[in-house]
């Protein structure tokens, strides 16, 4: 199973994006600045936006899920219960899994944005997909929520997971790093060597790498181990 970006190009002057690379099973992090094309790349990988040239090949991928940056785009039910039912989930299970304190009768668009994101991700992560694309999954989540979602993502049993984000604090166990720079998708490589090339690295990661303490992972545990590492 793999997703191949074969000389993919998208263009909307003055913006453009060129992407070439292979996404194998594992957890991939794609970082980039505002407007660099992370969401467009996610759409192309999901097959929802055709590239102007090149091809996106989803080899042996039979199920795909794209979670949009804005959870309200996914809403199909009027109430929390209806929304959960649209995912074939009982509201009690989804609400408990999301860790939010709301009634199933609550109008789904009356939830705070963070609560809605919790609920949406709870629904998305309740299923397995060969290709799971998460566009800014951590935006609007509170700190405990980010850690919970990271644990769930890290615990995925298989498939290709690609996270498109500019998150700077909380990450799951990443296998491979990518970033969009100057209109081009750059493969930084496998962790932890990829950290040496990561231009969009959070300041703590940057400081650790600069001090020669390269974290094995950028999970909170990995960062703590590197920060507390004793030389000698």
């Amino acid at each position, binding site marked *: 199973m793999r997703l191949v970006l074969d000389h993919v190009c998208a263009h909307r002057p003055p913006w453009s994006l060129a992407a070439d690379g292979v996404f194998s099973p594992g957890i991939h992090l794609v970082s980039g600045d505002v407007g660099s094309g992370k969401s467009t790349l996610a759409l192309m990988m999901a097959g929802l936006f055709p590239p102007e040239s090149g091809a996106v090949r989803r080899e042996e991928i039979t199920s795909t899920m794209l979670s949009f940056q*804005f959870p309200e785009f996914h809403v199909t039910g009027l109430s929390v219960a209806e929304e959960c039912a649209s995912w074939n989930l009982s509201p009690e299970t989804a609400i408990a899994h999301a860790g939010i304190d709301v009634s199933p009768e609550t109008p789904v668009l009356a939830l705070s*944005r963070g*609560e809605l994101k919790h609920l949406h991700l709870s629904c998305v992560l309740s299923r397995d997909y060969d290709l799971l694309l998460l566009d800014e999954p951590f935006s609007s989540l*509170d700190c405990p929520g980010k*850690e919970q979602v990271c644990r769930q993502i890290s615990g995925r049993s298989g498939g290709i997971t690609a996270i498109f984000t*500019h998150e*700077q604090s909380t990450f799951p166990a990443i296998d491979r790093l990518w970033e969009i720079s100057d209109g081009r998708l750059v493969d930084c490589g496998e962790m932890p060597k990829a950290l040496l090339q990561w231009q969009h690295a959070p300041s703590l990661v940057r400081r650790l790498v600069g001090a020669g303490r390269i974290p094995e992972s950028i999970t909170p545990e990995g960062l703590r181990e590197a920060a507390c590492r004793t030389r000698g």
Partner: protein
Amino acid sequence: MIVISGLRYRCLAIDALEIAPGITSVIGPNGSGKSTFLKICSGIAEPESGTLLVDNVSPRQTEVGYVNEFPDRNILFPIVKDELASPLRFRFTPCKETDHAVRDCAGSLGIGHLLDRRMQDLSGGEKVLVAFAAAVITRPRVIVLDECDSHLDAGRCRWLEEALRMSGAVYVIRCTQQMETAALGDHLLYLEKGRVLHAGTPAGVFSRLSDTSFYPISWRWPA
């Protein structure tokens, strides 16, 4: 000074609180009432009982710039330059003055290249930048930002911090889930279940949250 007394509104219950001029960050779990609190601060909602006064007047009697937590709910017009001009046009500012202010504001905030773009074609982060520009183009006395940094990259977050300091606003009240950003403010409020559990300087409030995931990650293990 922003003075709150006996405030009740939906889940919010704040008996007494004073907020000094400067940048105040509001943090707390999802559903704790942060956005509701910001709606009261901006005058979008009014307390069911009690008061919130900004230098002795209600928020509706002062100039407020507000950025919604849902970027698409900020949008009124299809083209960026019209969106940015709207606060000035609504107050019948002369066209030439409006055009000049739009270009000046967009230029100073680094979004001049977006002026002719359609709002619906912008990325989430770009929508936030435009919404922020529209909120500050009238140089309001109070700026209220509802988690707009959750759509911005690290560089834009630093840029936003600088833009807030340069805005001339007396009060900036913003909620954020980026604790490193919250640590940069002058004051910090921690809300839980509609109550302000902790208020003070970032150092003071975070010292009470040191065993929680709200404690800034860069403070945990200085590299």
